[in-house]
């Protein structure tokens, strides 16, 4: 009886801990969507992305040469996209020294050396006048064994690195789900400016004990192309010559490559079968 009471006292006195500890080092498993996550999406490939006309026009206008501008060379993948890369992820917990309660769960992401904080102490999100960052401002909570995270205050950036935009009003809900030595990351991105429906993606990671991982991603901008001051490379509407390449390379009709919510649903395949594929590249 005394032992039971003592155990009860000990258990009751323990701080609230995460149901699952995600701490440790993880590497991305690239078996899913490899072409997008390694080489990257092709120009004009908006297939399966619920974009609207405004996003299409920005994507069509985007010239990859823009990232040769010094101020654009080191721009970071947003938190809504960065987990797609061939990255390594370190997770650890920040605890209050007095109570041992988890204040925050931290992520260090090797791509662009980004440190991300997921606040677990119930603090509110900042005001609309606070700065936006590449990783945004995140708060988290445990839902059973799943860590659910809500992120706001993300900078304007790209939804995919082929010029599809994401606005600074985008928000993201994520679920981190650990299965032993594997972890699934699910993200649901809502962008009222450039998407008509949320974009849902998932990636898997594997616990990494190899200690072979590259953690650094130095970037120092340099002038790569001599241009007159103020030039921003872009295509005028209707003048991007590369938009049909993706469809032609993969034998797809052009229409679905323009994306849209309809192209995210399985029923779209029925419509797709009735379309004429783009002629092959010469």
């Amino acid at each position: 009886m005394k032992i039971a009471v003592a155990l009860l006292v000990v258990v009751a006195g323990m701080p609230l801990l995460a149901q699952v500890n995600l701490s440790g080092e993880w590497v991305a498993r690239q078996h899913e969507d490899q072409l997008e996550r390694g080489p990257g999406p092709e120009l004009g490939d908006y297939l399966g992305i619920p974009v609207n006309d405004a996003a299409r026009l920005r994507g069509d206008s985007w010239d990859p040469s823009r990232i040769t501008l010094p101020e654009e060379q080191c721009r970071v993948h947003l938190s809504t996209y960065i987990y797609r890369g061939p990255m390594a992820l370190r997770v650890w917990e920040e605890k209050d020294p007095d109570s041992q309660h988890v204040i925050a769960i931290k992520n260090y992401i090797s791509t662009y050396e980004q440190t991300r904080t997921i606040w677990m102490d119930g603090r509110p999100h900042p005001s609309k006048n606070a700065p936006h960052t590449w990783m945004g401002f995140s708060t988290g909570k445990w839902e059973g064994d799943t860590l659910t995270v809500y992120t706001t205050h993300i900078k304007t950036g790209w939804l995919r690195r082929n010029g599809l935009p994401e606005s600074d009003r985008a928000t993201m809900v994520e679920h981190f789900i650990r299965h032993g030595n594997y972890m699934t990351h699910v993200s649901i991105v809502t962008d009222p400016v450039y998407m008509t429906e949320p974009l849902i993606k998932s990636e898997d990671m594997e616990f990494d004990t190899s200690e072979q991982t590259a953690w650094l991603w130095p970037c120092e901008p340099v002038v790569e192309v001599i241009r007159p001051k103020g030039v921003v490379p872009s295509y005028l509407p209707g003048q991007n010559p590369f938009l049909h390449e993706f469809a032609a390379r993969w034998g797809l009709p052009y229409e679905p490559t323009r994306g849209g919510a309809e192209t995210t649903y399985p029923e779209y395949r029925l419509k797709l079968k009735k379309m004429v594929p783009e002629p092959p590249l010469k």
Partner: protein
Amino acid sequence: MLALEMSAESAPPATPEQFHKYCGAGCQPARDCQSRYPVAPGEPVPSPNRPRIHNLPHTFAVTTLRFSLLLAIAPLLAAQQTAKIEVLPVQGNIYMLAGAGANITLQLGDNGVLVVDTGLAPMSAQVIAEIRKLSQKQLRYVVNTDVHEDHTGGNEAFSKEGGTSTVVNIVNTPGQTASQAIKIVGHEGILDRMSASVNGKPARVSLAWPTDTFFDEPKEFYFNGESIQVLHQPAAITDGDSLVYFRRSDVVSTGDIFMTTGYPNIDLPGGGGIQGVLDALNRILDLTIPAHHEEGGTMVIPGHGRLCDEADVMEYRDMVTVIRDRIRAMVKKGSTIEQIVASRPTMDYDGLYDVSRQSADAFVETVYKSLTEKTK
């Protein structure tokens, strides 16, 4: 193509949360999160009964004038009671005040108080009250980034608060005194437009006018332990725009040349133009240096909207340039203004600002006029 080589000889990793110091009102102080504080370190807590400096004589005319003004701005005063001014620590000596019209930049230190822009006139009492929560030092400088009333509306109130005839001791000359007034710094274009009656609209009261103007070289001075450059940007939003660069705090206050809430509000009759705006945006990019991977470092206080850094200016510069290029291409093809407006060259950016179609079209027309006037 990019300078993204993986190397052990890299820059040091980012300081954890170096950029996440804005935790929101009510946030819990944590070791790695600097919460907001209402009173600057070392500054005394203000007394609500502190006497204010008022130098205007209480004549019947002044009383009548005040009553008339009160009637005129009554609706704005009503709105003011519900408006909330937010104070955001930026870095170094600098704060940003949002919610009083245009953003107000505040620099505090042992030498006194400096503000960049003064917001709308009906908000002045609230703005000054917020400043007094942070510092009891004398208001010494107002710097105006342009002439528009959301930037200069509080000039008169600040002149009164700062004192227009305060007697001060002269350093190293015991027994000598001099009359010292608050300085209102601005490009001479601001003074020209503020002091003139235009289209039946009377000139602004002289207390609101810049007292310390410049017209060519950058205005430079040293205050509160740092060098300050007021950099005129010709023919941008107006002909009197300036950037204000706090070199030690590493903060740029941009006025309406850059904002996160809308397209540039180019005032063509006021001497503005699209190329001047683009030149000024590129000048901001020259001044700013990010700390790590295009984030943080030099902070940027826009004319309207949230606190920013270089990447935000870059996006805005890109947007204005892309839209300018589209309109310019159509002008070169001989398109009419109606055809250009109908093509909706801003369509992919309108949603960022929640602008009406009418407002977007007005921006397109302004750019068109600015471009075609240049080519005449």
